């Protein structure tokens, strides 16, 4: 049986990859995928613990996260398309309208 810590390490690795990708990637689509990666890293820990303690709550939570992620993907992609139409670029550094 694979010990619990391995799952958790994989989950942490996935999450950190997501964070790093979010921080260093310039393309908005890649950034978006990094977020999905982070969510899935978290999902993995939920499932792990659920399996470990024989509780179903963790698995239910994963479904919640997946639903939210799907909604977020729909809205996020729509925004990305709108941004691309408006500015003809997907480089994150160029999208700085919030700057004062």
């Amino acid at each position: 049986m694979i010990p619990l810590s391995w799952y958790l390490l994989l989950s942490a690795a996935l999450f950190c990859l997501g964070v790093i990708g979010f921080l260093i990637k310039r393309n908005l689509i890649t950034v978006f995928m990094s977020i999905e990666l982070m969510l899935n890293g978290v999902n993995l820990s939920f499932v792990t613990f659920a399996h470990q303690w024989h509780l179903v709550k963790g698995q239910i939570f994963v479904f919640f996260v997946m639903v939210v992620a799907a909604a977020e993907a729909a809205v996020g992609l729509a925004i990305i398309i709108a941004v691309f139409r408006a500015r003809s670029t997907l480089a994150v550094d160029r999208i700085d309208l919030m700057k004062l």
Partner: protein
Amino acid sequence: MNGSLHLWLIPLLPFAGFLINGILGRRLPKTIVTAIALLAPLASFGVVLNAVFSPVDKPYVETFGHWINAGTLNVDFSFVFDQLSLVMLLVVTGVGFLIHIYSAGYMAHEDGYARYFSYLNLFMFFMTVLVLAGNALLMFVGWEGVGLASYLLIGFWFQKTSAADAGKKAFVVNRIGDFGFLIGMFLLLANFGSLSFSVIAAELAVKPAWTGGILTAIALCLLVGATGKSAQLPLYVWLPDAMEGPTPVSALIHAATMVTAGVYMIARTHFLFDRSPFALTTVAIVGAATALFAATIALVQTDIKRVLAYSTVSQLGYMFLGCGVAAYSAAIFHLMTHAFFKALLFLAAGSVIHGLGGEQDLRKMGGLRKSMPVTFWTMTVAVFAIAGFPPLAAFFSKDAILSAAFLSGGSGKIFWFVGLFTALLTSFYMFRLWYLAFMGDSRSHDIHAHESPWSMLGPLVLLALLSIGGGWIGMERFAAYLAPAVGARSLESSNILDWTLSGLAVAAALIGLLIADRLYRARPESASQLAKSMSGPYNLLAHKYWVDEIYGVVIVKPLMLVSKFILEWIVDIGILSGLVWTLGGIATLVGAILQRWQSGNMRSYAAWLAAGAAALLLLVLVPWSAVLANVGIHLNMAGH
């Protein structure tokens, strides 16, 4: 008579006149305005006469109800009718009524006729309140109120800058006096717990040993108030300027009645002054100094009304001198005769000005005895009266004050001598005026004098009769009558001394007459030569000792400069606003620094987010107390 005297009618009738003429006057025909304006003081005079002849015990008090009732301060509307207020009321309503009649002629062609009479009635209202008041606060109502009426009437021709200025000056200088009056009332409240004259007098009566100290302070504060209203040193400066008002106003307010309120107030509160020799001496010094000071200025004035104004200041000084030697009845006696002859002087001067079409400069008059005979004869009576020739009214009253001063001992003889010398000066400047205006030939050929209408001459004749006979009642009888109200002081005297003092006073008047005769009749050119040869003193007098200018430089200018530059520019704009804007500036600065953090770059936000999360993780996961214990630091945690 058992019924009430209806004292409230005395002030309220003129007040009704004020309201009607003040609100509706512009729409009413002139005859109705005149009728209302004249009937109001006449009716008041009638009520006063009714009260005089009704056999009531004096002092007779009427209380109409509470005025202020707050905490420990209780003040009633109460009127007191005693010998003192009786004499004063007769003067105020009687002379006041005559001047109302005169005004109807004098102001006949003015715009704002109704406005003038409404103000005049308003004055009568406040003056009678002042006289009748049974407590200091109610007296203060009249006190400030007559100041208001004076302000409005001096500034009657408000489009003249000088008139508006003079009105404001009168009010503000009077306010300085009122400041003293207010402090005096506060002291009364603090020490007696009441402002009622009778309560204070009763309390003093049961403590005969109480003299000086706080009573001196109270008396001196009241004296400050009196010097403001009665135009004494150092607050006399408003009265000469007040001559900007119409002449009947000068006669009524600035000669006969309002300016004597200070004397009346001192007599009314004599029980306080009697307990403070120091305050009494101060009153006498102020009076004597003012009498002399104002008389010297009057010597060289060329405006007929200004001569009379300074003469008024000087005569009020006599009354103060009388009060200062505790001869209150003599002071009130002189107040009464002064009301007659000074009102007459002003009204006659007004008649001259009216006849000459507004000319007030003595140097342009002359020879008026032919063209204005009635004015001339009445004026002659007044001039001889004020100079103190027997058997005219002022001879008795002035003599009473001078002999009281002489007999009062101590510094009294100095006061007497100052008074005597002032009498000489008075006689001189009045005959100077008389000679310049009425004798010789006209010095200005383009003016054709005409005699005034009978509405003006009638009051002149009546006042002339009063100026002749007003003093015949005699000082002894007058003093005996007033004694219940103001007390009586018996002075050691003898017939020979009395006759000598009277003789000296008449001699002083004669000398004044002779000098004036020599300078202005026998050799008319010698006066200007004398002025040239003594140009230093002459200029000093002609410029009224530069007092207005000194006040301007010492008080008004510094106040304005300090307010403008130190208070407004440095304190308000500099320090206080500066402080607020500095605080605002600090906030802006902090904001500017923090703003740099908000770069707008999404990845920088994300990086901070990640760093923050990492820091929180570290904080939670690392067992800090163990780590610190390893390096030798022990945290004082709960449970240890």
